Every structure is written in C-alpha cells, then in structure tokens.
C-alpha cells in the first residue's frame, strides 16, 4: 500500500509536533568527549589577527595560542599578577625604565623562518607604536638587542604596569620579523608564522580550529585540538553547552543567576573578573545632542538600577565610571542620579520638545533589554527613542572614521569595553587622539589629556587614584555618558575541564586543564 502525505495531514502532524515541542523538557547536560578535543564558542569570526590592528576579544585568544608572549597573567587568590612565560628564561624589571629579557632556547617559527630572536621582539614592539593599539606602547622608547636571544625593553618614562597590561595582553604578542616582511608588514586572518602549541585554521562563519603544532617543543597543552565554533548568540551557545556540544562557554546574566541558584550536574562556573565597563554613549557633535543640557537630561532620565535588575538579574555591579571594581581610581558614586523631574526641567530649559533619537546596540539579550528600559525611561521625559539592533560587524565599525560615514549619524549607543588590571588602559580610549577611533563621543579636553600622561608616569597610588577619579569626572561632565555596569565575564564549563581566563575575559586554551 502506498501511503501518501496530504497537505492537511502534514499540517496536522506539524501542529501536533509543534505543540509537543513547546512542552518544556529539561535535558541534563551530557558532555561528549570526542577524542582529546576542547570544544569552545567564539562569538564572531576572527577578522584581524595582527596584534596592531585587531579588534580584540577572541583574536587575542588566537594570538595566545600561536604566538610567543614574554609574560602571562597569574592568579594570586583574588588578585591578578603576572609571571614569565615558557618563552623566556628571564624577565626582570632592572629599574623604572628598563626590563631585561632572555628568550628560551629552541623556539622556532613555523614555515622555516628560523629561531625566535630578540630582534623579533624589537620589531614586534616598536611597530606597535604606529598601530591602532599604540596606547599600550605609549611608554615604550625602544627595544635594545643585546644578543641573539637577549635584550632590554627601554621605557621613555617610568610605567610600573607595563609588563602587566602590555606584555601579558594581546598587543604583547611577538611576531616573526622575516615572516612579516614576506607578507608586507601586515596580516589579517592567517598568521605569517606561528610559534606556540597550536597552529590555526578557520572556516569563516563556522569555526576556528587549533591543531597541535608539530614544531612545538614546549610544554604540551592538555588538549591536542581546540575547536572554537562561531555562535553569535550567547543563548544559543548556552543551549549547546547544556546539550553537551561545548565544553565551556560564556554565559549571560540570567543563566549565571540560574546556575548560581541551582547548578546543573557536571557543570561549573568560572568568573574571570569584572573588568568590563558598560555605558550609554552620546555623540556630542550630533546636532540633536550638541546642547549639554540635553545630554545631562538623558543622564538623569535613565534608571540604571532598573536596568541592573531587569536586564542583568541583579548579577552585575553598578558602574560609576570606566574604572572597574578593585582597581585604583574606582569611584564610589556618579555625579548625577536618576531624576526624571530634573531631566524634564533640563529639556525645557534647553527648549527641546518632541526629541526623537536612535540608540544603536548589539543585538543580544541583555543589551536589547537594557535598550528597552532606556526607551521607556526616555519616553517618560518626552524623548522618543528608536532602538536599532546591530550585529557585531557593523556595530564595532560604526563610530570609526576609517570605516565609513556612520559616525556622523551616531546619536546614542550602548557600549562595553573590557580592560586590564590597571586604570591607565581604560582611559586611553578617550584621549583627544582617539576621537573617531574609539572616542565615539567625540569630545576633547586638555586637562584629560594631561592627566592621562600624568597617570601613566605616576607611581604613588593615592595620587594615581586622584588622577583617575578626576579623569572620570571630566568624562561625566561632558554629559556624554550614562554609566551602567561592570559585567562579570562568567563561563559555564564542564567539570571535566578547568578554565583559564585573563582578567578581561579572554580564554587561554593552552592553559586549560582536565578536570
């Protein structure tokens, strides 16, 4: 007998299955172990692996697996410190402006580019002074090569956290000078030469794969292979993790709250730190926002406490500036408060009515919820807010003059930066020379620029604290910022693996372990 499927039958069956599918079925995480492979999630493709011109995030994670670094983060209880990597046998701060190093013996670049030399270190660090990440090398004068494997990093001024925030972070990666010459001095998605436990290969939109480097002579990592699947949406990654398809993934605020309350079997949580700062930015040059009273009205109109509860389930710390909890320069409170009446008064004083603005944000759960709360808050003071959700690509380029003209139309946006354990790092993006690069608010202030230099040079902790507090006051007084929160970078992981993450949240796959 031939059985035929009718349209009605199909619809009926589909409806029944659909209804069945809606019934909540709880699955227990079961982590698959296909060989010695670590399965992770990255939120986007790695578009630029060059330390000088990268966006950061998972691109830094890739560099840490395939390129030499002189120093790496180490955890001492609740605080982060640094330690020399396998790549050096010596890394010492001789005095305030001199750091001596000696590279380990036997390190070779792939592709026949020979041994890793002090000359490679000199090339790599000195080129950074003319890169997008030049702020990290502000204090660098030059690198002195004293031998094939030895040299001295010479700073132009004292800067104690140079090792911690520059050498441990992505910009501290060392490149092969010869390989870089062969590719014209810049690269994007393919390392010219690698020296690390893994080689790198990526399929855009699908995954980045780190395979064991056959030329690597250093310590063998716990996993022979690391698969980083491109999963844009954090919730999709969480579901994949709970289904046992990933060994570790970052989790959102709701899930962190749920796990904290009721941890699933075989699952652990690792929190990298609260070195992220999120704010709502305003373009001070935009005609609708040129009047500071309008910007101040918006500062008073936004109910940040409701955002923390509604969008983040109360799992994040309220922000009062860009300096994160536990760091020198963190402020206790902001200079404005939630006061809709004052917001309305400021708008009236500015003679503004019927204002319509557009808020651009990354299209993820927490940001969209935040945007909708802000939308309701601003509606309450008479401002119509349109929310424009964007994917990572267009979002991260929208304020950069080198990436098009969108910066001219920018009005409001939700932004989150990660930082390193020193206040200097967070402030570097808001100096005058960053206007149109990362200072999308587009204000300049001579005092801020001066204090930035002083902060880099100052070694007295109290004085540094005062400098960075004042710098945040200057930022806030532009009216261009509504401070929101410091989000912890939390990772859900199988108890079969141990996680290694930088304070700013980048994972270091080579330092993952078996649980």
């Amino acid at each position, binding site marked *: 007998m031939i059985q035929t499927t009718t349209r009605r039958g199909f619809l009926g069956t589909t409806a029944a299955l659909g*209804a069945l599918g809606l019934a909540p079925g709880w699955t227990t995480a079961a982590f698959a172990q296909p060989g010695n492979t670590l399965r992770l999630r990255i939120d986007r493709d790695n578009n630029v692996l060059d330390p000088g011109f990268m966006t950061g995030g998972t691109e830094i994670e890739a560099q840490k697996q395939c390129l030499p670094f002189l120093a790496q983060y180490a955890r001492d209880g609740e605080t982060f410190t640094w330690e020399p990597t396998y790549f050096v046998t010596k890394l010492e701060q001789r005095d305030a402006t001199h750091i001596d190093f000696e590279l380990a013996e036997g390190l070779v670049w792939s592709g026949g580019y020979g041994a890793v030399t002090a000359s490679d270190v000199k090339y790599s660090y000195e080129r950074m002074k003319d890169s997008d990440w030049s702020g990290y090398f502000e204090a660098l004068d030059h690198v002195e090569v004293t031998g094939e494997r030895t040299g001295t990093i010479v700073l132009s001024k004292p800067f104690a956290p140079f090792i911690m925030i520059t050498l441990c972070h992505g910009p501290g990666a060392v490149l092969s000078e010869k390989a870089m010459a062969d590719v014209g001095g810049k690269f994007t998605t393919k390392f010219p030469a690698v020296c690390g436990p893994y080689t790198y290969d990526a399929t855009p939109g699908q995954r980045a794969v780190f395979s064991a480097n056959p030329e690597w002579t250093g310590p063998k990592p716990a996993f022979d292979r690391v698969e980083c699947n491109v999963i844009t949406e954090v919730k999709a990654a969480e579901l994949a993790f709970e289904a046992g398809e990933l060994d570790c993934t970052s989790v959102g605020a709701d899930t962190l709250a749920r796990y904290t309350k009721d941890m699933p079997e075989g699952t652990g949580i690792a929190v990298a730190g609260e070195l992220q700062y999120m704010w709502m930015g305003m373009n001070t040059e935009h005609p609708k926002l040129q009047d500071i009273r309008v910007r101040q009205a918006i500062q008073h109109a936004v109910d940040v406490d409701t955002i923390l509860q*509604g969008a983040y389930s109360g799992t994040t710390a309220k922000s009062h500036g860009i300096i994160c909890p536990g760091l020198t320069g963190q402020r206790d409170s902001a200079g404005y408060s939630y006061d809709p009446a004052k917001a309305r008064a400021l708008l009236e004083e500015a003679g503004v009515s019927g204002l319509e603005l557009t808020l651009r944000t990354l299209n993820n759960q927490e940001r969209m919820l935040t945007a909708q709360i802000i*939308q309701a808050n601003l509606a309450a003071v008479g401002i119509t807010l349109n929310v424009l959700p964007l994917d990572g690509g267009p979002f991260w380029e929208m304020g950069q003059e080198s990436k098009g003209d969108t910066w001219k139309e920018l009005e409001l946006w939700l932004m989150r930066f990660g930082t390193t354990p020193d206040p200097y790092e967070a402030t570097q993006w808001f100096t005058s020379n960053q206007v149109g690069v990362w200072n999308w608010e587009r204000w300049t202030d001579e005092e801020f620029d001066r204090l930035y230099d002083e902060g880099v040079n100052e070694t007295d902790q109290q004085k540094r604290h005062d400098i960075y507090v004042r710098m945040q006051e200057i930022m806030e007084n532009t009216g261009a910022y509504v401070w929101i929160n410091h989000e912890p970078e939390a990772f859900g992981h199988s108890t079969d693996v141990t996680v290694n993450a930088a304070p700013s949240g980048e994972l270091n796959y080579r330092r993952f372990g078996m649980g």
Partner: protein
Amino acid sequence: MSENRSEPVTGIPAVDASGLPDHVTETEIRESAARERREKLRSFLTNWQGLTGLILVTAFFASAIFASWLAPYDPNALDVPARLSGPTLDHLAGTDQLGRDTLSRILYGGRVALKIAAIGVSVALTIGLTLGMIAGFGPRWLDSLLLLIFDTVRSFPTIVLALATVALTGPSLTVVLAIVIITSIPQYARVARTATLTLRNTDFILAERSLGASMTRTLLHHVMPNVVGPLLILAAMDVPVVVTVEAGLSFLGLGVTPPTASWGTILNEGYLVIRDAPWMVIAGGIPLILTTLGFTFLGEALRDIFDPRMGKGR
C-alpha cells in the same frame, strides 16, 4: 444581456457571448445561481475544517482589531519587580523579562500580524494580478520579460533577501512588508498569467476585441472577474505564510523593532528564558499555530467549494 453572465466561471463551461439559448430564461438562470450558492453555503457549513477555520480567523481578526479593549495592560508598560511571573489571575499568560503582560503583548502582536497580512497580501495580490494579466494578454516579448523577472524574484530565498535588505536599511515593519510583497507578487502573477492565457482566445474575449474594446477594458471587465476568484483563494492560503514570515523575521531580529510586540519577538524573548519561563514560548506559539491553521483550513475549504476539481483526495 449582461456580459458577466456569458463569462466562464471556474468550473462552469463558457457560454457563447451571442446570447442565451431560447429554452433558458433569465429567471431560471438566477434560480440556478441561487441554488448553487445555497449548496456551496451548505457544503461550507457542513465542513468542520472550514467552520473551524472561520472561527479561528474571526477570532484572529477580532482580537487584533479590539486589542486595545481586550488587553488588560499596556503592552509596553514595564514592571521589573514582577518580571518572569508565571500565569496568574492578574497575568493570565505571565510576564516577560521586563514585567510586561504577555497576554497584552500577544493581543497587540496580532495587530502586527494582521497589518502585515492585510496590507502585504492585498498589495501583492493587486500588483501580481495586474502584472499577470499584462503578461498573459500582452505581446510575447513582454510575457517573457515579466516571467524572467518573476522567476528571478522567486529564486531569492525570503530569509536571505531579508538579511540583505535589513543590512542596508535596518530592521522595521516597513521592511518586513516590502519583503512580503516582493516575494509574494510572482506567485499571484503566475496564476493570473496562466488564467489569462486560457481566457485570451475564448470566444467571448475574441468577440469583445472584434467589437473594438481596448485592452484595458477587456482586462478589467472580462478577464479580471474570471481570474480574481482563484487568486482570492490563493490569498487566503497565503495569509498564514505571510504571518509566519513576519514572525520568523521578527524572531531573528529582522522584523519589528522594540518595543513593538510581535508574535515573533515574543517567541524570541521566550526562547531566551525557556528554562526559567516556558510559558512565554507557549503563549507566543499558540496564536501563531491557531492563526496558521485557521487560515489554512478556511482557504482549503473555500477551494474545495469553488474549485471542485481540486477538492477531495489530496
């Protein structure tokens, strides 16, 4: 005599335009038509799928049109302390992550679906009908050109077209409408073209043309009335497709923008908290399922009645 009486209706053989046979009176024709209508109505009323469809579709229209009276709360009013509350007497379908009443958002979401369905389908039908008739009645080269355009548009997957459009313009209800219209036009146009090709060489059309009727008059007064019936049935069948396209695009963040409630955004928000608040997905999914089934049942019942050749045995 009336021109319309002489025109072929789907399922009824064409009658010569020169006049009625002598033995058939006009009264008999009217009685026959009335009898046929009664039979069709009886047939519809005894068709449980058709009735179910009619009830569901009526409920859909009523809930969307009267949403502002039926909704217990402002669909956009935040109540964060009450976020993710389960179904209670105060909130029959629970609340979402921002404490908004899910039932109210579903009712208002129906308005978005109705707007997309009504405007999208009617505009696509009008344009498709016009282009289809022109293709079927016009010169060969124009027919080939329009067919090429229809096939080109049909070859674009809806979601890919939506992604590309949204990348250029940003998400909005207007974009969703435009995508629905653009992707729906070819199917209406193709049906209209085929029906027009069938009609263009019938005697009554040839007679009309030989009497000097313009192409516009012929199309509007003689071709269109015969083509529009099947298209209306197709439109009824197309409504659930359009509603799910809108919901799908909004689910992906390519449709309506916040705080507008749409069934797609409710489903998306529900999916994000499915472990904590499964009622959001259930509440958002039920109206989508019922509306889809309602329009499908209604459309199929209408087709069974007006196009008996397609009736049973599918």
